[in-house]
């Protein structure tokens, strides 16, 4: 699999995983009632990616909102990304609206708990 592309839905996030290029983007809104299934496919694909020959992995998270169910799934995705660190150089960009302190703090919490450095990037508006 070279790409995993999922178009953003009304309440579900967009996904753009380029496995050959080593770039992974997910963002938008995640207000999915049953997010386990949605995020499990992302987690599995990252698990499979660990054995690829690409030595770098750049992750970009551009969420404008996610509910608490999704938050736990995103955290599980982060834990899978953390495992990549054994084999690859991992960079995580965490974008947040400049007025959205909560989104910044969630990123900081993930960074803290997982002990992974995040690049926190403020934007005027995440359109």
């Amino acid at each position, binding site marked *: 699999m070279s790409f995993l592309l999922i178009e953003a839905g009304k309440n579900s996030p967009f996904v753009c995983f380029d496995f050959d290029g080593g770039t992974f983007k997910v963002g938008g809104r995640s207000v999915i009632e049953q997010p*386990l299934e949605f995020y499990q496919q992302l987690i599995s694909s990252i698990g499979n990616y660990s054995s690829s020959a690409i030595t770098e992995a750049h992750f970009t998270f551009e969420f404008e909102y996610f509910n*608490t*169910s999704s938050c*736990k799934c995103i955290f599980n995705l982060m834990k899978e990304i953390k495992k990549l660190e054994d084999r690859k150089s991992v960079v995580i960009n965490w974008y947040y*609206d400049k*007025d959205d*302190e*909560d989104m910044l703090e969630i990123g900081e919490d993930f960074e803290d708990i997982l002990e992974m450095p995040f690049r926190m990037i403020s934007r005027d508006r995440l359109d």
Partner: protein
Amino acid sequence: MKNRVKELYGNLEVYGTYTKEQNQLYLSKDDTTRVITSRLEEICRELLDSDANHVVIELEENKSFIGFYPHSQRSIILLAGGPIDCFPMLHALLINDECTERTISFEEENVRKSFLRSSELLSQLLPVNDTLEPFFDDYFIYYRPLYQIGGDFYWFEQNDDKIMIILGDCTGHGVAAALVGIAMLQMVRSRFSHSEKELHESLYDFYDDLDAYHEKYESDEMVDLELGIVVYDKSKGTLDFTGSGINLHYYDGAELKLLKTRRTQVVKKELVHVKLNVKEGQKFFLHSDGVIDQFDNQNKRKLGRMGLQTILEEQCKGLSEFQFIKHVNAFKGQTEQIDDSTFLAFSL
């Protein structure tokens, strides 16, 4: 429109019309009476959320409830009668609109009734506000689950001159989240009621219980809870607060202050526990994240803490549920609610 309905089909009972005003639905039975029933409101909301311009609820043989919403109108007309009789009238009324419909089966209706009954029962478990009367000069509770009931809950418990106020926000929405909420509330109460421990110590104990609950029942790991807990001791004039993701805003008579908490503080053993000396005129606010996560009328920007700050500054001048709802509704416009939303306000 109602007159035309009567002209066309006099034997049908016209229940009234629903009109959207600042995203509130009012059933106008006549020019002077406005009523809201959750059943009718639900039908109307379903109609507004769907592409259909009328919905037929088949109750039982030869009896139906019909709501229709011509795109050219701003009101939903609600009718009761037999479905066969109604259709010619609907088509006559909808002559200028493309006629699209959604019919809800008897079975589906039963499921919906069951859901509504569950919702009513669960709503009745929330405490009565009278408990607050002896403690506060003024207060109000804004409780708006995403559906009829949800994962947000609140609880008051009096113990002599003390009152404990709990606001909880469980993962998820709807009846499932509400059932989890009830289980969580029982666990919270068992840890906090009549406890001699400091508040934050009891909160650590609660989360130990939650871990044990997950382990024992091998439950879905999605079950989680954010809490805000206040204990006001009227005789001592003190207020204790701790939380795990729910903040306390308070107005000390001069400025608005924020006591922030985070769910991760439990893991890191860094829970906040604050004891305040309080006096008359001070105001306290607790809210679930659904309040600040609501998107605006353009569906672009969240209310956020800055938006909430504006609302709270207004409330500091004097609590007003009306003003609060007005502000929230104006911000939200027609944009759909995305989470359970609860706001508790108290004035000493």
